[in-house]
Structure formats: structure tokens, C-alpha cells
């Protein structure tokens, strides 16, 4: 009979956590009045919120179980899947981010449509919607399985409960709720994972010491090059470090929206840098640490030798935690799921509204219509995700099929996006055939794995599925390059602002004028509400403040609450008007009513004003 872990106190902590998250997320409903706010949170967030919330999205419901299992079996090399994103960082920060940010696209298919043609956009839309909705289902299913194993909840009802909680706050607060709840959930995840790891190290001090108890082979951060078949370096390098990392950062609609929610391009880049240089390393310890501790506990004779990888995280946590604390660890597991599912629901809704509803069903309607559709699409995405759970439970082949589908679409999509944003010569036809031809050849390789032979790198045949990513990248890349060279290059106007080398044109389009990149400082001022007669979407500051910010009339400004920890909730973008001439108001910023409402400011409020560009 299955052993149920946890005490009533643990379950109380977990339920309390659910209620806290839903209440916290729903609070942000007041900050969501337009589709821009629903999908991009009004583009008001500083880098640190974006960075932490990305970690919560990165760590999925399966991460604790999966990576702790790998850590238990193979040691520090379990971090290989996470600690390798540095290689793509220059392309992500300086090619992809400026293109999507300045071109104001709302979705990956929209980018494909603008950069290439409507045909490629339709294909991108179909691929992404299947991927996203299926991924919601998989996340719900894996958490259902985890909760069933831990506390005996039926898989389906555990999935329903989590989906309902996540949907409530996503529908209410959109991207703002997603980002703020993910920030909170990131802290929960990191505290639980690191706490378990550090607590385990302290506990093991009296039993021989963590380091001494860990087998020598577990102390390598990279695995053996091409063996064993199910865990080798080169396969994981191509699958995770290259294909999946590019997919996560550049193909993931939710992540794209997250970076577009930053208050400026600079904050967007800073968020990416901090996330990859610092937080991902911490996240890898968070998810794997339980497995390393479990291995040391087994060596110390405190856990049975028969412990399996899948049990490692839960058993180590249960062994080390007191009642109530274990409930906190369970909450971290569910936090990992909710923070992934909420992002996926918001992303699915964005693709549906932006690439299906608006271009094909209701072309011109007031923004509130699209906001309503966005909320309905979120609920529909959750319902489909829940409906997939029993299907995944009953037909393991469908579950496997979605995994195969994801593996199949990833390399061609990654190649199309990377070439699209880095190579001016890359053509629409080439993009279309990269996607279609790449997917066909990926499917063929599943049927005839002999095609993977030249890419096998000496991996035993049973582990060739790892190397399919390399095969997919190569064949899709070859198709892309060959078709590009056989077709006429796109016009300069067509790709302006949409590819590396044209970012400046994108900046000009975004601002509507030449960018001013002189480096200035923030001005701290008090709000004075005024009636501005000529144009309403401007603010006015003193000549001294203009000089401090190195700003000119017409430059883009960002006005935000003085309290940094408010994270831009009270903020707005605007333009600099002519400087104030009244000397008694030199410590003030003149703001018209329309911006007072948009930024949710109060009269006399202390704010920071900075020039964006």
C-alpha cells in the first residue's frame, strides 16, 4: 500500500499557501484595464522583478523531482541542464531582445508574420498553440502525479485544484499578477530548495560530513562525454545547452512577454544578465540539492540503499524537515507548477487574441472587447489543459506524443527565429521551409533513427534521442541557408527594425524620433497635477532636472513611485515637454490628469523620473 507522507499541519501550510497566492495575485486586478496591461503588465517593471520571476517560470513542477533524481544518481553533473545558458546570452540580449522590444510585437507568430509572411505566421501560430496548451496539460499532469505520490490526492483533482487557483489570478490580474506571484513563488522555491540543501549539510556535519559522504564520481560538474546512454555530456549539451536553452529564451511566448514587460530595453537586458549569471546557478542548486543530500544520507546509512532517484527529493525533505516545514517544501513544489502554468495561460491567451482572434475573427473592436476575449481564452486554455490530464493518464502514448512533438518543433523553430533575428539575407520562403522541412525531417528521424548516425558522437544507440536536437539544428539550418541563397533577399524596408543591424531603425520607430543615448541620472521630484493645453501625453520638469537626466524635449521618460520596492506598480512612460519656467516649482514634475490616472499617481507624491532614450 502506498505510504502517505506529511501531517495535517503540512497540509494546512500548503492550503494556506494556495490561498495566499490567489489573494496576492487577484489583488493586481486593479492594475489591469487594457490588453497591453493584461499581456505586458503595462511595460512598467524593473529588471529585478523580471529576473526573479523568470526563475520561477524556469523551474517547472517536475524540476525538483527530475533534477534531484539526476543529482542523486550522478551528482553535481545534474546541473548540466541549467548551467550553460551563457553561450546564447549575447545573441539573446543584443539581437533578439531589441528586435522584439522595439518592434512592439506581442507574440512570436506576430514577429514571424512581420519578419517573413502571413503563411509563416499561421504555421507559427498553430505550432505554438498546440505546444502551449499541451504544455499546460503536461505540467498539471506531472504535479498531479507528484501530489498523488506525496499525499495521496487523486491525480485529476490535484491538477484541477492547481489549475483553478492559477486561472483565478491570471484572469484577474493578467501579466502583472503573473509577474508578482512568480516573484513571490521564486522566493519560496529558492528558500525551500537552498534551505533543504544547507540544512542537510549542517545535519550531516555530525554524520561524517556532506563532502566526505558524497562519492568522488558525484563531485564532477560535467558527465562523461558519451556514456552511459541515458546520461552523457554531449547529448545533454546539444539537447539542453543549445536547443532547449534557445527554445526557452527565444521561442517561449511567456518568456518573451516577460522581457517585453520591462520598463526599458536596458532593464530587459539587465534582467537577462542577472538571471543567467546568478539566478540560474542558484536555481540549479535549488532543484538538485535535495538529490545530493539524499545521496549523502544514504552513504551515512540514514536512508536505505534501495532509495530510487525519483524518491530522492521527497525522502530527503521528509527526513530532514519537521512537520509544517515539510508542508512548506510541498508548497514550493506547487509554486514551481503554478508559476509555470500561469505564464503558459497568459501566453496562450496572447497568441490566441493576437494571432487568431484579432486578425481572423473580429478585426476592429474596442480594446475592452479583446481584453474580455483574452480572459476567456485564459479560462479555455486551463480547461483544455485539465481535459488533457485524464487523456495523459489513460494514453501514455499521447503524453509521449506531445513530448515527441515538442522535440520535433523545437530545432526548426529555434533555427527560424535565430536566423530571422541575426541574418538580414534570410528570406520568407527559407523560414517557411525551415519550419516545414525541419519538422518533416525530425519526424522521419523518429521513424528511421539511422539518420542520426553521423551525429551520434559515440553515444550508444539507445541514447540517440538526446542527439536528435543536433540533427534537427543541422538539417533545419541547412534548409534555411540553401533556400535563402536560392531566393531573392528581402527588401531593406521589409526587415527594418526586425533583424540585427537594423535595431537603430527599430529604436527610431519605437520613439518616433532620433534616440538620445546620453547618460544621465534619475531626478527625484514631487508631482504637481496640471492642465497641459497643447498635448496631454507629456510631463514637464525643471531645466536642472532635464540637465541631470541629460534629456531633451520630446525624449521618452519613465516616471515611477519613489519607493523602489513597489516595482513600478505606480508608473508610466511619457515624453518630456518644454522645461518648467516657474522657479518655485523646480522641485516638481508637472503631470496632466490623464497620466495621473495611467500611472496611478497621487498629488504631491514623490517620484523618480528617468530618461529612457
Amino acid at each position: 500500500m502506498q505510504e502517505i507522507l506529511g501531517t495535517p499541519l503540512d497540509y494546512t501550510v500548503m492550503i494556506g499557501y494556495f490561498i495566499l497566492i490567489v489573494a496576492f495575485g487577484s489583488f493586481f486586478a486593479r492594475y489591469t484595464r487594457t490588453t497591453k496591461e493584461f499581456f505586458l503588465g503595462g511595460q512598467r517593471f524593473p529588471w529585478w522583478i523580471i529576473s526573479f520571476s523568470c526563475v520561477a517560470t524556469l523551474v517547472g513542477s517536475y524540476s525538483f523531482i527530475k533534477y534531484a533524481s539526476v543529482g542523486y544518481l550522478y551528482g553535481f553533473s545534474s546541473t548540466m541542464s541549467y548551467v550553460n545558458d551563457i553561450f546564447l546570452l549575447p545573441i539573446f540580449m543584443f539581437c533578439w531582445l531589441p528586435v522584439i522590444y522595439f518592434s512592439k510585437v506581442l507574440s512570436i507568430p506576430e514577429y514571424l508574420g512581420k519578419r517573413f509572411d502571413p503563411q509563416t505566421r499561421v504555421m507559427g501560430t498553430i505550432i505554438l498553440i498546440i505546444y502551449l496548451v499541451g504544455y499546460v496539460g503536461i505540467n498539471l499532469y506531472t504535479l498531479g502525479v507528484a501530489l498523488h505520490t506525496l499525499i495521496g490526492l487523486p491525480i485529476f483533482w490535484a491538477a484541477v485544484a492547481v489549475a483553478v487557483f492559477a486561472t483565478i489570478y491570471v484572469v484577474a490580474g493578467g501579466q502583472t499578477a503573473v509577474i508578482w506571484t512568480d516573484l513571490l513563488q521564486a522566493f519560496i522555491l529558492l528558500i525551500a530548495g537552498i534551505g533543504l540543501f544547507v540544512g542537510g549539510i549542517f545535519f550531516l556535519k555530525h554524520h561524517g560530513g556532506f563532502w566526505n559522504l558524497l562519492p568522488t564520481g558525484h563531485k564532477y560538474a560535467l558527465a562523461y562525454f558519451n556514456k552511459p546512454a541515458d546520461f552523457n555530456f554531449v547529448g545533454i549539451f546539444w539537447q539542453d545547452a543549445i536547443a532547449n536553452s534557445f527554445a526557452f529564451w527565444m521561442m517561449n511566448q511567456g518568456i518573451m512577454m516577460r522581457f517585453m514587460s520591462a520598463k526599458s530595453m536596458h532593464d530587459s537586458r539587465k534582467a537577462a544578465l542577472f538571471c543567467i549569471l546568478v539566478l540560474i546557478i542558484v536555481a540549479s542548486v535549488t532543484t538538485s540539492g535535495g538529490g545530493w543530500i539524499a545521496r549523502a544520507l544514504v552513504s551515512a546509512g540514514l536512508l536505505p540503499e534501495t532509495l530510487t532517484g525519483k524518491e530522492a527529493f521527497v525522502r530527503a525533505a521528509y527526513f530532514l524537515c519537521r512537520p509544517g516545514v515539510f508542508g512548506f517544501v510541498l508548497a514550493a513544489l506547487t509554486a514551481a507548477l503554478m508559476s509555470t502554468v500561469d505564464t503558459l495561460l497568459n501566453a496562450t491567451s496572447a497568441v490566441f487574441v493576437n494571432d487568431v482572434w484579432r486578425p481572423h475573427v473580429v478585426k476592429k473592436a474596442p480594446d475592452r472587447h479583446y481584453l474580455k476575449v483574452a480572459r476567456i481564452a485564459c479560462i479555455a486554455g486551463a480547461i483544455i489543459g485539465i481535459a488533457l490530464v485524464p487523456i495523459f493518464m489513460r494514453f501514455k502514448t499521447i503524453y509521449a506524443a506531445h513530448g515527441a512533438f515538442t522535440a520535433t518543433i523545437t530545432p526548426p523553430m529555434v533555427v527560424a527565429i535565430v536566423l530571422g533575428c541575426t541574418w538580414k539575407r534570410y528570406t520568407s520562403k527559407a523560414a517557411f521551409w525551415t519550419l516545414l522541412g525541419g519538422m518533416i525531417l525530425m519526424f522521419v528521424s523518429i521513424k528511421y533513427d539511422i539518420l542520426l548516425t553521423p551525429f551520434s558522437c559515440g553515444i550508444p544507440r539507445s541514447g540517440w534521442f538526446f542527439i536528435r536536437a543536433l540533427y534537427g539544428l543541422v538539417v533545419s539550418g541547412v534548409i534555411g541557408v540553401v533556400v535563402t541563397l536560392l531566393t531573392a533577399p528581402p527588401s531593406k524596408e521589409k526587415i527594418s527594425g526586425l533583424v540585427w543591424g537594423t535595431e537603430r531603425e527599430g529604436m527610431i520607430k519605437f520613439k518616433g524620433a532620433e534616440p538620445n543615448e546620453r547618460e544621465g541620472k534619475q531626478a527625484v521630484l514631487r508631482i504637481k497635477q496640471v492642465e497641459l493645453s497643447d498635448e496631454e501625453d507629456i510631463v514637464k520638469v525643471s531645466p536642472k532636472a532635464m540637465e541631470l537626466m541629460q534629456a531633451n524635449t520630446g525624449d521618452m521618460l519613465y516616471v515611477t513611485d519613489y519607493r523602489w520596492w513597489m516595482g513600478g506598480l505606480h508608473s508610466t512612460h511619457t515624453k518630456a515637454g518644454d522645461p518648467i519656467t516657474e522657479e518655485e516649482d523646480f522641485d516638481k514634475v508637472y503631470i496632466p490628469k490623464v497620466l495621473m490616472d495611467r500611472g496611478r499617481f497621487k498629488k504631491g507624491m514623490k517620484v523618480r523620473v528617468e530618461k529612457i532614450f
Partner: protein
Amino acid sequence: MPTPTISSLLYQYIVGGVLFVIGMILVFKSDVVDLKLRRYRIMVIWLIAGYFIYLAIHSFFFFVAPRL
């Protein structure tokens, strides 16, 4: 499981390094990155430092940690 050899470390930082260098070339040739401006300079420095930080971490857990 066989003991890892240096080929994993070399492969990661040579093949990954090629991708990183291509990215850095695009950064240096970008029409918006002006290295005279402090904000771009700092980011580029951190990017390059990041590569070596990753290399240092992996080297430590290859050459030093298993022998401690």
C-alpha cells in the same frame, strides 16, 4: 558511471565558445552598442566575465573538487 574526462569540459567551452564568440561579434558590430557609453561597456564586461565565471566553476568542479 565512467569518470568524466577533460573532453567534456573542452567540448563545452570550445563549441559553446564558438557560439559565444559569434554572439559577441554581433554585439561589437551592432549599430546600437556604443562602448563609449558606460551602460553598454559594463554589460559587455559582464558578458565576457560571465563566460569565464562559468568556465571557472566547471573547471573547479573538474580539477579541484573531486580531489578535495
